[in-house]
């Protein structure tokens, strides 16, 4: 018993006070934690964070950073109750989030519907080859027509080369006949074509550039912009290629804004789809995720969703089906299990088209399977064709499933185990991924015979073999430890106390991998509340950017400046190429380049220089009177903004640096700035009259958001 290790007095006291049933229970089980924690707390009281520090610590760690009012709300509710609510977020009021999510209607569609209504380039190629029923009415017809025309123009531009649609068709139909699921094979071609973001962009550019651009008269732009929103959409839908692309290209930034103005979310999506349906899907997948991170009240659920999306990393540009699969991956695979059982989550990812495509399991085929037998017979007759057909194992998913998803690299497996796992998982594939299909088990591709993984034998049993394997992996002590440590790194510190990790792993095993229970153990651990843990974690770029807009209560019309900022800072969402995902430690994210980007982001956000994002630093209520009376000073404004933006406060050093530099620089540059403002022609829709207080607030807020204190959580 662990209690025996403690001092005698403590032991006696503990034994006397433990209720009888507890004494018989395993003392390490999480069931006794409350009672143990009581004593532990007595022993640790003087060493634990207290009061508001405790609340802020919890908000820093279990949310994407506090929003204005959060501290008070948790104070009123009680921290324990708040945490309990975060663990069970079903009943939470999400009015604001729902209103924001309504901007992305397509994100509610099934993958198939997304693929059909916002067609990928693969769908367009099928349409051109006559292998797809092209919609015959509505805006969606115009979307297809535009994309088909763009592709045709691109193909024509590639003169001298064969029409690429033709050979692909023959391979596809051949493989359809042989393997019975053509698209699983063909995704390989798509993968090769869109291997990197750069390649994708290049091909987009080529597609647009291929069309010769006709000149668009200003009159026409004005006429279209003057139309009612609905009529504007119809007018654009009626435009042929290349006129539409030329029209969009001719718009100035402000005109682009006017073009979308007054439209419903559905209409905006239609216009964006006319410009490029694939780009729209990729942009919305990212925007939807950011929206939830920023606005959801179920913050812990979103933090955990982000955690698992990183643990089960997927790269957006793996192939052109991926953006489509990712909408459902976050929504149906990860989020529903983010606070559930790990095994359910693992099962869900193993059945997700996104994971099966990303780690190539879609094309792994048992070397002795029925499918390979057929391919070999075909190959004997038509060798050229057979080259394109899969005929063996791909061990990519098998390896990462063990190394990164479950037992970890020291989990006790060998190369032979990896191969055996790959055999077990043969046949786990995706039905028609090019059309947004879902998981399917294809028995023809499954490797026959028994397999042995880490000493455990799996009898030949088709799909069940994989289910048993996933169960074994999810319930392994190595997995319990690996997941617990990763959680502790995310929530506690870069180098978490091993004893804490051990306790979490015990809870994991005792609770059948219940993620909530593991988080409760973490929450009730003295290590977590130890004062040196306050702001001990450095924010990742995502945590930094989201916490900045949350604390600023920014009004967000467009999320793309945030997505761009993440790209610059080295953490684009769904942009991590290797399956390892991003790291959570300070060493990765603190360096000179990163600091420059963070400071510039803080300054741009605070000065309303991020297009489509507005912050308002003016005071409300009582302080407004002071402001009106002109009694604000840098000191009063700094104090007000500091308590609003960084409720935990900044150091005296930071405050002094802000104020001193601020005073100096302000008086020096005042004249110069006034002159600059007079000289710069400001766009009319911007407020020209900016008070001195306002300018001062922008700089103050920018400096505070860029301070060392705000880099931590």
């Amino acid at each position, binding site marked *: 018993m662990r209690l025996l290790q403690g001092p005698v007095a403590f032991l006696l006291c503990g034994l006397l006070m433990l209720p009888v049933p507890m004494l018989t229970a395993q003392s390490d089980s999480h069931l006794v934690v409350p009672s143990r924690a009581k004593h532990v707390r007595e022993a640790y009281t003087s060493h634990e964070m207290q009061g508001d520090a405790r609340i802020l610590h919890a908000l820093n760690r279990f949310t994407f950073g506090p929003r204005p009012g959060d501290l008070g709300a948790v104070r009123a509710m009680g921290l324990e109750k708040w945490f309990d609510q975060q663990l069970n977020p079903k009943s939470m009021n999400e009015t604001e989030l729902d209103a924001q999510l309504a901007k992305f209607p397509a994100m509610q569609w099934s993958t198939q519907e997304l693929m059909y209504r916002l067609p990928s380039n693969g769908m367009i190629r099928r349409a051109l080859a006559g292998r797809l029923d092209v919609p015959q009415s509505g805006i969606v017809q115009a979307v297809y027509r535009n994309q088909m025309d763009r592709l045709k123009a691109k193909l024509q531009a590639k003169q001298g080369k064969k029409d690429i649609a033709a050979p692909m068709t023959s391979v596809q139909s051949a493989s359809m006949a042989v393997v019975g699921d053509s698209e699983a094979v063909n995704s390989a071609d798509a993968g090769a074509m869109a291997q990197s973001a750069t390649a994708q962009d290049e091909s987009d550019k080529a597609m647009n550039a291929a069309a010769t651009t006709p000149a668009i008269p200003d009159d026409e732009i004005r006429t279209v912009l003057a139309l009612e929103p609905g009529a504007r959409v119809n007018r654009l839908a009626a435009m042929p290629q290349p006129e539409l692309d030329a029209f969009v290209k001719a718009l100035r930034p402000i005109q682009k804004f006017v073009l979308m103005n007054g439209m419903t979310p559905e209409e905006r999506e239609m216009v964006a789809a006319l410009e490029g349906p694939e780009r729209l899907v990729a942009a919305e997948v990212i925007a939807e995720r950011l929206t939830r991170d920023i606005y959801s009240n179920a913050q812990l659920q979103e933090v955990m969703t982000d955690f698992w999306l990183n643990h089960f990393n997927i790269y957006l540009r793996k192939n052109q089906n991926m953006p489509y699969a990712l909408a459902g991956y976050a929504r149906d695979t990860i989020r529903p299990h983010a606070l559930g059982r790990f095994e359910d989550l693992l099962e869900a990812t193993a059945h997700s088209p996104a994971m099966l495509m990303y780690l190539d399991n879609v094309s792994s085929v048992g070397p002795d399977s029925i499918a390979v037998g057929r391919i070999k017979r075909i190959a004997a007759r038509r060798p050229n064709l057979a080259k394109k057909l899969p005929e063996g194992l791909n061990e990519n998913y098998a390896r990462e499933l063990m190394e990164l998803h479950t037992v970890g690299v020291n989990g006790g497996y060998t*190369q032979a185990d990896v191969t055996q796992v790959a055999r077990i998982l043969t046949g786990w594939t995706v039905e028609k991924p090019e059309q947004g299909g879902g998981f399917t088990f294809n028995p023809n591709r499954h490797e026959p015979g028994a397999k042995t993984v880490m000493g455990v034998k799996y009898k030949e049993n088709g799909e069940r073999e994989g289910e048993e394997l996933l169960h074994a992996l999810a319930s392994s002590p190595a997995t319990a430890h690996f997941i617990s440590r990763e959680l502790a790194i995310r929530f506690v510190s870069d180098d978490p106390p091993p004893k804490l990790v051990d306790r979490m792993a015990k809870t994991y095993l005792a609770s059948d991998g219940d993620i909530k229970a593991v988080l409760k153990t973490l929450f009730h651990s003295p290590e977590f509340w130890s004062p040196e843990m306050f702001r001990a974690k450095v924010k990742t770029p995502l945590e930094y950017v989201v916490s900045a807009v949350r604390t600023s209560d920014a009004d967000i019309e467009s999320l793309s400046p945030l997505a761009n900022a993440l790209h610059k800072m080295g953490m684009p969402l769904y942009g991590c190429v290797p399956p390892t995902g991003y790291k959570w430690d300070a060493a990765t994210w603190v360096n000179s380049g990163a600091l420059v980007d963070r400071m510039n982001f803080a300054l741009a956000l605070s000065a309303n220089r991020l297009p489509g994002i507005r912050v308002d630093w003016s005071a409300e209520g009582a302080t407004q009177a002071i402001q009106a009376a002109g009694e604000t000073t840098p000191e009063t404004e700094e104090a007000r903004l500091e308590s609003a933006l960084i409720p935990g406060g900044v*150091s005296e050093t930071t405050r002094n640096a802000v104020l001193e530099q601020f005073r100096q620089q302000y008086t020096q540059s005042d004249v110069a700035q006034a002159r600059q403002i007079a000289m710069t022609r400001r766009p009319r829709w911007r407020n020209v009259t900016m008070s001195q207080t306002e300018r001062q607030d922008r700089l103050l807020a920018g400096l505070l958001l860029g301070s060392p204190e705000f880099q931590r959580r």
Partner: protein
Amino acid sequence: MQLTRRFFFRNGAMALAGTTAIPGFLVRSVLAQTAVQPNKRLVVIFQRGAADGLNIVVPYKEKNYYSMRPSIAIPQNQVLDLDGFFGLHPSLASFKPLYEQGHLAIVHAAGSPDMSRSHFDAQDYMESGTPGVKSTQDGWLNRALQVEDLRRHIDHSPFRAVALGPDVPRTLAGKVQAIALNNVNNFSVGGRGPAPSPAASAFQAMYGDSGDRIFHAAGEETFDAVKMLRAANPGQYTPRTGANYPRSEFGNSMRQIAQLLKANLGVEAAFTDVSGWDTHQNQGAVQGQLSNRLRDFSDSITAFWADMGDDAENITLVTMSEFGRTARENGTGGTDHGHANAMFVLGGTVKGGRVYGKWPGLENEQLNQNRDLALTTDFRTVLGEVVSRTIGAEKMDLVFPGAHIGQRNFLDLA
């Protein structure tokens, strides 16, 4: 006159003495570099994802190569012959002249002796330079710079060790400060004017006086670097004619490394990486996925070489990847995680035009674990030779602890 704070404190009056016409750091970096190894600079490139060495430097005389890779092998008549046994992938055409001029050397069957097939672990081991040892805190290149400091203690530019990208890679992690930057032309706070913005000054004071150890250090480095870069003004940069960088992420990184090197910022070691090598599926042969990667790879490096002009003489560039790929193609037109690989070493003083290393053969019984190219050259002997001949880091037991390498193991290529 731009003078960084830390230089001022370190060098005191010495630094002020140099303030008449040219910035002090230029004086110092020149002095520093003339001390032992005049102007030697090292460029390190990591191919992340495990590049397929057997299709990059093709052993086209190996029969088994063709039987193991029925759909992805490079046909004999398509390889760019190097020595009658090895040939370059045709997409590496721009490397061929460099090889013929004797600037480009190849080491085949090289890599990390550790058997891990995990990208993560293998990259970590290769970057730490201590295969099999996880507890190593710093990277091999950082240690090489530390070793250089043991021999001659001088002040260095904040740009002494620079990485193109959003973060400092493991290779450069450690005691010697390294800087990471995404974009050379955009490296300033609160605007790009000739003088620091009010915001930049405030941040500088804030971080400079901060009690937060980590951010204090990073802040100091940042503002030193920003000032130097502003003074050097690399934004006014056009590559030399004939240096045609591909418009790719890697091409852009190589271009910026050239920019930094030519701006005389005191760069000793530059690092960048290039991903997209994990070709499990449909990797292609003469054309295709790997072919596209290789064209970008070689054209970017060749453009960099051309861009450096006469300065190329002082450059040594070395490439590596965490492991090779399986000798046999897999069931999906790709290759899985393997073992040994090919490394490129390019430089003015490199004894190029040769493929170095003992060739282990590709017959089934010659393969590592019956699946991969066996390893005959520890990557650390290549890197060790390179750092001792460039930045003068000769204490191999400190650069690569536990590796037991030294002069006697060197291939004598640098």
